[in-house]
């Protein structure tokens, strides 16, 4: 009996710890007061509406969106062939390749950001947007490779041989029987990559330049000058967007099987 109570207590604390902040942010964003505070002073939608009127949020949201979409696409275009090669062939440097591809997960973002800044942006004079795009692609690549690998490992390789014996070429077999069967894995990787990129702070922090900021960075710098609840309102909106994406993914793709 006692241990049962303890279980519930621990569970409640964990849940509180995990989703408590979310409710605080939502409440703070719906505040009618002038500054960011909890508990909120009254209830209103004025800060939610304000979010859509701040120009820099609109610009950084567009940049973050573009980075997330195109960075994830690029990561998949690189990642699917890598995952395929790792799954199907005994590559001489297979393990090394796997490690290199996983590195961005293991190495702290701050280091990746600093390294890219110091050795790519500064000496080579690369455009900030290009550097951000490259960095996000590199960060998403490990997730893409892992998730697609998982669905490739569930797929027997002899269906490709069967397709070849029925007249398909090797690439034809890939497009006709491999790709359709790892479709949901690719979509899962896309969503995971999208969210990872969209929420990315440390790398973007180093690479963001004058006038070029991703949304999370923009929100931080906004907070530094203006301490009003609009940031909380925006954060709540983004959280709902993420929840919606994951919900749709789970509903239609069984997303949780892949992560």
């Amino acid at each position, binding site marked *: 009996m006692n241990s049962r109570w303890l279980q519930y207590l621990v569970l409640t604390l964990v849940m509180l710890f995990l989703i408590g902040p979310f409710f605080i942010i939502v409440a703070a964003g719906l505040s009618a007061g002038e500054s960011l505070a909890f508990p909120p002073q009254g209830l209103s939608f004025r800060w939610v509406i304000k979010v859509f009127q701040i120009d820099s949020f609109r610009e950084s949201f567009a940049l973050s969106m573009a980075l997330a979409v195109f960075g994830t696409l690029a990561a998949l275009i690189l990642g699917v062939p890598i995952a395929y090669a790792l799954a199907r062939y005994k590559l001489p440097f297979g393990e090394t390749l796997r490690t290199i591809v996983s590195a961005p997960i293991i190495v702290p973002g701050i280091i990746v950001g600093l390294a890219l800044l110091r050795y790519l942006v500064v000496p080579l004079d690369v455009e900030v947007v290009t550097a951000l795009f490259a960095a996000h692609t590199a960060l998403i690549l490990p997730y893409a490779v892992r998730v697609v690998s998982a669905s490739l490992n569930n797929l027997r390789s002899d*269906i490709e041989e069967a397709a070849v*014996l*029925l*007249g398909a*070429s090797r690439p034809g077999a890939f497009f006709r029987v491999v790709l359709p069967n790892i479709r949901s894995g690719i979509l899962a990787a896309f969503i995971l990559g999208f969210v990872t990129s969209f929420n990315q702070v440390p790398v973007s922090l180093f690479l963001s330049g004058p006038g070029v900021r991703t949304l999370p960075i923009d929100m931080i710098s906004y907070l530094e000058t203006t301490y009003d609840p609009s940031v909380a309102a925006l954060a709540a909106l983004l959280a709902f967007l993420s929840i919606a994406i994951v919900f749709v993914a789970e509903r239609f793709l069984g997303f949780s099987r892949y992560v």
Partner: protein
Amino acid sequence: MSDFLQLESLTLAYGKSIAVESLNLSVNQGELVAFLGPSGCGKSTTLRAIAGLMKTRSGHIRLDAEDITRKPPNKRDVGMVFQSYALFPHLSVTENVAFGLRLKRLDKQDIDKRVTEGLSIVGLGEFARRMPAELSGGQQQRVALARALVMDPKVLLLDEPLSNLDARLRLEMRSELQRVQQQTGLTMIFVTHDQVEALSLADRIVVMNKGSIEQIGSPEEIYNCPATRFVADFVGFENIFAVHDRQLLPADDNVGGDKPHSARLPLTCGTAPDTRGLAWRPASVVLGSGNYPGTIVGNAFAGTVREYLLQTALGPVRADVNAELPAYPTGSDVMFDLPFDKAVPLSSMS
């Protein structure tokens, strides 16, 4: 047509390890050939080489008077039914069967007609719209068979087609395969490690061991007159002895030892000067009379027969005796005989 498919000193390897060495085989058109042998002896490897899924190290493969050794697998007109069926999980039964026909760019009516035909040959007409995951193992197997059949291949290869099915389905699929083969006149090679399957299905059996052929023959030849120790062992000749200097010796001791008997060579399967060993089935061994002494060390009732194990100067001897006769108790000494007219001469003891 004879020599429809020819393998000429075919050698196959995975990296440095040789899986199949200088294999020679010739298959006639319309023949049903079984590759029989224990797991790992190179059966699948040979099939994959015929299909072109595996490069040949050396040697040639000829099919229908054409050298296909270097021909890519998708141009060979060779069909294959995989051990795991290898159905395309995202396609329905119909779409699976139509896959190859669509790649051939046949017109739609032709495809529909051949798919319907193919599915009815394997008795799956009403399952056309199902997905592979909604079918039993036996039904999936039939889809895989239909998918290969509709392509009208020159040779159909089947890798352990029955091993994943339960006993009853296996019997059913066995007669199904025979029926399909008679109906279509297709040249077929199937792989199995089950001698009963090979004996009951094949026109000709190729017994393989460690990457080479031990013996090729009709089921009767393989079963009654195995040529080597390996084949004899495989088809149930449990008593195998070496012959040396017209002496019968324990199987693994063909140079010396205490020579218990002078051998006269038997006549059942023809004698040859190169006879290296003799083999008897347990049922051929006579207990209670004969020239050899032995001691009963094992004795088990097995329905119609009683199975004995004897300790003898020739090593262990197995004998099956009509169970209605009185039993010899374990530990008793008996005389036994190895009748030469029931012996099978072996040309190789390795």
